[in-house]
């Protein structure tokens, strides 16, 4: 997933696209190290240090990763698309701008 996400960041550099993470890792410092190692430049909410964090709980997330694609108006448009489908979903929404 990291490689795919890095490629999306690169592809849409300078365009109105963003990855927003909601992270459920336990340790903040270790996570920061790992993000640096993996070249994760996009921002993530730190969700309380575990899978039972307030954001994931409210959004009823029980499997990781769980993905939503949101359009520029803030509407939920796709859920749990992966691979080529994810690329196509983002491309479609970028095309609406």
């Amino acid at each position, binding site marked *: *997933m990291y490689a795919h*996400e890095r490629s*999306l960041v690169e592809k849409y550099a300078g365009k*109105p*696209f*963003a*990855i*927003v*993470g*909601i*992270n*459920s*890792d336990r340790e*903040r410092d270790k*996570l*920061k190290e*790992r*993000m640096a190692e*993996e070249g994760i430049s996009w*921002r*993530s*909410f*730190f*969700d309380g240090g575990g*899978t*039972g964090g*307030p*954001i*994931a*709980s*409210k*959004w*009823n*997330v029980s499997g*990781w*990763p*769980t*993905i*939503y*694609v*949101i*359009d*520029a*108006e*803030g*509407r*939920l*448009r*796709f*859920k749990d698309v992966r691979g080529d489908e*994810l690329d196509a979903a*983002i491309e479609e*929404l*970028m095309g609406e*701008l």
Partner: protein
Amino acid sequence: MHRFAFVLFAVVAPFIGASAQEGSQDTSQAEEVAVEAYEDALDAWTAAQAEHRKAYRSAETEEEQERIWSEERPDPDVFAPAFLAVAAAHPGGAVALDCFGWVVGNAQDEKLVNSSLKVVLREHLQQVELGAFVETIARSSTLSVERALQTIFTSSPHREVKGKACYHLGMKKLSSARLARKVAELKEDGQDPLEAYKGYYTEVALNRAMMLDPKVIQAVGEKLLDRVVNEFADVKGRRRTLGESAGAELFEIRNLQIGMMAPEIEGADVNEKPMKLSDFRGKVVLLDFWGDW
């Protein structure tokens, strides 16, 4: 649970009167024998599963691996009689309930499942231990389990048991509604659901899904979860309270459907800098719930 009860009893026993102590030692000894018999049955099953995983891992080719996975998987129906024998030898108690729970949760043969449910509803319906049983059988998606949950919800005298039955019955209704919607979509596309979902769902389940009105079942499921939130919110489930679980499910249904505005998220990033989802309005956002594991 029963094991804990036994340990607790062993601690308390020395402090009660001599004659009572004698009687309770008999009881706890019988309980101990029952627990051991149940654990033997469980060990045999666990060992068979471990062996299967080991064979799967040590297979040399992919075909071999696939064959082992599908053909050599331990058959729960072969192990069920051992559990039923323990239940028959120690009827009415917590161990019997654990045994029936295993059979209903694992057995493929509907006759085994149905006869176990029948005994439980006849002999255990008043017991508070039925709460754990409800959680165990909720894994199974047969109609008879759904009916048993309905009976337990209606008839159990314990609020905790009722709440669990209400929650799991509601979740079952919602998943029935989901399947009914998928089946209806397939039919609209001119496909045969029995063919398209062969191997994923039983023919019985698919035929039933085709007869259901998804909207009606969805409403029934939501109503049950609303009742959980209103009447049983504080009852503890496996990971969190039933109120939290049912509330999150309803929140997803009512606020997280495709086409709806994304609910605001407010929090802080990994560097403790405040952030909001709406900060990204005007951009296409890939929202990724993730963990580095």
